[in-house]
């Protein structure tokens, strides 16, 4: 017994599946109707049925593997055609069920393809120094350390807080400027929470983490203007990503 994992949907005749391994080590393939097609993979029912997927959701190592493989196939497919990425863990009994779905969801899929046609997703992150660890306030401390240690502590705390608030305000201004510049060259945007510094591998603090849907003709402009808009802050542009964040019809 086997099941069918769906990676992405595309127009019929858009192309073959990429030559690579999928979530179960399988070779992806294409199934479809006259109008639409899905890039799918045949996966073992053991591991991809209800129980298997439920177990996978509890296993972060397995999730990482699934996420990377799913993303890899979608990204490779998206290189030379318009695709709508399908959400992780979309699994059907067999190919007939997939083609039935393509007919039933025809209008939604068309709309999703139209939304991302000729466009790709680009990530933009901004990092700044200084908001993470405000330096101690020597004057406030020195002024009153002698006989009022408690007061000194509170004064120091307040000074730190004020400086921290200022730094955050500055960081926010930089982030909004970069986001505004990027949005002007893009057709849509989604924001993510900034990533923890220990995961980004940088010492600076991330103050913007957003992703933009950009027309291919404007990608050069997007990357150039966005990269320059940091004014001292580090701006990181990643991509192109397949349009995962924009395939579903939702507003940010």
């Amino acid at each position, binding site marked *: 017994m086997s*099941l069918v994992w*769906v990676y992405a949907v595309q127009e019929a005749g858009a192309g073959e599946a990429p*030559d690579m391994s999928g979530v179960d080590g399988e070779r992806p393939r294409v199934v479809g109707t006259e109008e639409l097609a899905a890039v799918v993979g045949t996966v073992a029912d053991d591991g*991809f*049925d*209800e129980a298997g*997927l*439920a177990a996978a*959701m509890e*296993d*972060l*190592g397995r*999730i*990482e593997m699934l996420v*990377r493989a799913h*993303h*890899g196939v*979608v*990204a*490779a497919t998206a*290189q030379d055609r318009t695709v*709508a*990425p399908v*959400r*992780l*863990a*979309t*699994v*059907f009994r067999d190919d007939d069920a997939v083609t039935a*779905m393509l007919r039933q*969801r025809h209008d939604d899929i068309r709309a*999703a393809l139209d939304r991302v046609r000729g466009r790709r997703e680009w*990530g933009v992150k901004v990092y700044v120094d200084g*908001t993470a*660890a405000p330096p101690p306030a020597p004057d406030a401390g020195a002024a009153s350390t002698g006989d009022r240690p*408690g*007061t000194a502590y*509170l004064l120091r705390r307040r000074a730190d807080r004020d400086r921290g608030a200022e730094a955050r305000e500055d*960081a*926010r201004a930089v982030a909004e400027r970069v986001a505004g510049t990027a949005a002007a060259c893009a057709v849509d945007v989604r924001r*993510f929470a900034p*990533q*923890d510094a*220990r*995961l*980004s591998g940088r010492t600076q*603090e991330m103050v*913007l983490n957003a*992703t933009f849907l950009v027309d*291919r003709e404007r*990608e*050069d402009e997007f*990357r150039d203007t966005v990269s320059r808009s940091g004014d001292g802050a580090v701006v990181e542009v*990643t*991509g*192109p*990503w397949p349009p*995962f964040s924009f*395939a*579903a019809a939702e507003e940010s």
Partner: protein
Amino acid sequence: MTSGGIPMPGRGARSPEHRVESTNLADILERVLDKGIVIAGDIRVNLLDIELLTIKIRLLVASVDKAREMGIDWWEHDPSLSSGERDVHEENRRLRQRIGELEADRTAELDEAPPRKRAATKRRAPQQQESDG
């Protein structure tokens, strides 16, 4: 038509080594975990499990300290964020108990400091009473 200037493998160059520019797992998780067109498949995935996983990973990505408080420390075992062996069921049980509280906590934090929370600053502001009398 060429791409926007980022070196991309040519069409013939697809391989299992295919990479987009960033292979940072956090970047990929943000985009892939609960994104993409939603299609109800034949295999029903427990929505609560997915939601839980998503919350867990979002917390981890946004705040390593918060994640560590909940006993999630898989990034420490492996630079690529792979999980080590651990009792995820126990972890999830504890997590379920705390989701509401943490979400409320997080909303409050976002309200007070929109661009960045205190994750990388001193995490817990001292709550000491005034000690001088």
